[in-house]
């Protein structure tokens, strides 16, 4: 078979995937970019006007800032929790399979259900948590009003910790037991073994978890929309929620498209940066 025929065959097999990505990803992204160059009615060409407007829009800057805080909080706490759970459940404990399964359930549950569930738990007046605290003689909480962003971070971590744990478990099971044995013979304690063996060898998993986590958190929309509606005020109006308001409430699809393109750029840059840092650390 000639090389040309081989290439033609390869292209033929690749065509469905290429078509899929072009039609469902690249064309919409291109369309989005184009829409971002027009005004709210999609009639007048405004060039980069929508993009420069975003950079001086206090609502957008606020939403971007709290999204970064949300992403940082979720990534740090979520990764630490997932790793901690993985290390614990990697031990030969009785019932560990059951615990692993139970911890994965929140991740497998629809975000709408998670949101409604926590809204009902945390509601200060009719929520289950305050009823429980009341029955124990403890003061009630009003976290949805006093610490709304931290509450959304907490719910996200609760929901995603099981998945992070599974990823770290896979990473832990790839570390040869020989290393730990040698370290033990050399007198290394549990903490020393964790910091000298486990953590460095989990670097690729940590990198993967942080990139996936970052992309997910920067695009977070559903949870604050369901739990707090972006409030109180604009305390939980994350970037994607702001974008939604601009598109579907303000009816300004040109500006909303520009905002979504900017989000894509931010996610790309931060992900590349993370990959770079990861590569250097692994080198």
């Amino acid at each position, binding site marked *: 078979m000639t090389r040309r025929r081989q290439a033609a065959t390869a292209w*033929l097999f690749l065509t469905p995937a290429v078509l899929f990505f072009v039609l469902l990803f690249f064309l919409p992204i291109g369309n989005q970019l184009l829409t971002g160059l027009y005004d709210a009615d999609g009639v007048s060409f405004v060039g980069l006007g929508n993009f420069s407007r975003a950079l001086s829009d206090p609502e957008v800057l606020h939403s971007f800032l709290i999204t970064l805080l949300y992403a940082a909080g979720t990534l740090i706490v979520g990764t630490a929790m997932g790793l901690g759970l993985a290390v614990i459940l990697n031990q030969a404990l009785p019932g560990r399979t059951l615990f692993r399964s139970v911890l994965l359930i929140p991740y497998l549950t629809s975000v709408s259900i998670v949101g409604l569930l926590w809204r009902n738990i945390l509601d200060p*007046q009719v929520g289950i948590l305050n009823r429980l605290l009341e029955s124990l003689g403890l003061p009630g909480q*009003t976290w949805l*009003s006093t610490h709304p962003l931290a509450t959304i971070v907490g719910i996200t971590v609760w929901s995603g910790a099981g998945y992070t744990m599974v990823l770290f478990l896979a990473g832990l099971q790839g570390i040869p037991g020989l290393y730990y044995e040698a370290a033990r013979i050399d007198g290394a304690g549990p903490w020393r073994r964790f910091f000298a063996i486990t953590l460095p060898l989990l670097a690729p998993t940590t990198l993967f978890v942080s990139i996936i986590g970052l992309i997910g958190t920067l695009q977070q929309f559903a949870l604050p929309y369901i*739990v707090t509606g972006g*409030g109180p005020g604009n*305390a939980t109006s994350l970037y994607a929620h702001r974008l939604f308001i601009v598109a579907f409430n303000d009816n300004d699809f040109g500006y909303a498209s520009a905002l979504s393109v900017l989000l894509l750029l931010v996610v790309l840059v931060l992900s590349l940066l993370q990959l770079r840092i990861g590569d250097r650390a692994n080198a």
Partner: protein
Amino acid sequence: MPSLDRRSFLQLGLGVTVLGAVGTACSPATPAAKKQDARTFTIYWNAGHGYQAYKEVIDQFGKDHDLQMNWQKFQWPDLTTKLTADFRSGNVPDLVEEVSAGTGTQYGLAGNVLALDEFAAADQAFGFPGDFIDQAVVARQYEGKTYSIPLHLTANGLVFYNKELVDKPPTTWEEFLEIAKATTKDKVSGTALNADSSYSAPFYSQQKVDFSQVAGKQFMMPADGARTALQYMQDLIFTHKVSPAPVATTDYSGPQKLFSAKRAAMFVSGPWDIGPIRQGSPDIDLGLAVPLTGAVQASSMAGAGLMIPAKARDPKLSWELLTKLTAVKTELAATKEAGMSMPRKSWAADPAVAADPDLGTIAKALAVVAKQDVALSASGKAAQIAELWKKAYQQMIIQHAPVEQTLADFRKQAGAAL
């Protein structure tokens, strides 16, 4: 005939599949699909208004016209989102419930819903606008065109009270505060404010405050009245502690749920909360009182309408269903079922309505409805400004932000948006 080896066979098969898939994607809809579509009549409706009275009318309409009735129900924010996307794509429903007066005008001026005056003029038996209460009609008109027909007519500002806890309902702000203080005990709050910013309207209207004066690009004026109203509401929570701070959600039923759970003695709302309380907590002796008097007695107008998208497949058919859904017979059936108040004069004159004490109270509230600024809807910025007000209101009521400064910030932002 040449024999096919396995690779050639796969190549051929894949090629046919790809060509078929691309061909299908690029081809127009088949006549069969079109035929099926043409027999489907789609209605967007609010999830809280899915009364049996309407279902019966819709089902009968489907049978009469051999149509598959696709009655889709949403919460208001989701309905708005879906409708906006539909208007963009051109794939619209046949009839839509309008969230409140003015929304249809906003869509109509953008060319997305039809002006209905010609249909109404050609349909004398329908009785529009003559048989409809003026406020409900005027709020839906702009420059001589009507973009929606009133479905319900209600007023926000009624005082709901538990007769076991409150002997005599309050009539003024001072009495409201006094009773709220007296009834705040243990787990019961004297009242409960709503996280939904539209529930502030009765309070600021009672201080003669206009939400907007588009002509002068002014909002929440006069400023003194606005400050008094919002400060009063804030003080109920943070100074007098007679109301819990509401929780920011997209749900407006928080105070009603507290009242139904006997954890609030009073709250301010509209007739839509009568049904859930009567059905969910029949043991509560519910009292309903007329709107409070601040500087004046006032309520804010509420109530859904019906509108026909400009690209609806058969607007005449949509109009026909609209007239059946807003007929006095249907109105009376919906009132009997859910206690909802309606916009027709002939409905108000019906003996069953006139004899109902709750409806009598609602009628008194409707008589003191504050005027709406129709120019705000016509500006196309009503939703954007409502979102800004939502933010400001929650900052004051939930986050305890200083009232004067927050109102000033809102005025500035709303003016800029306009």
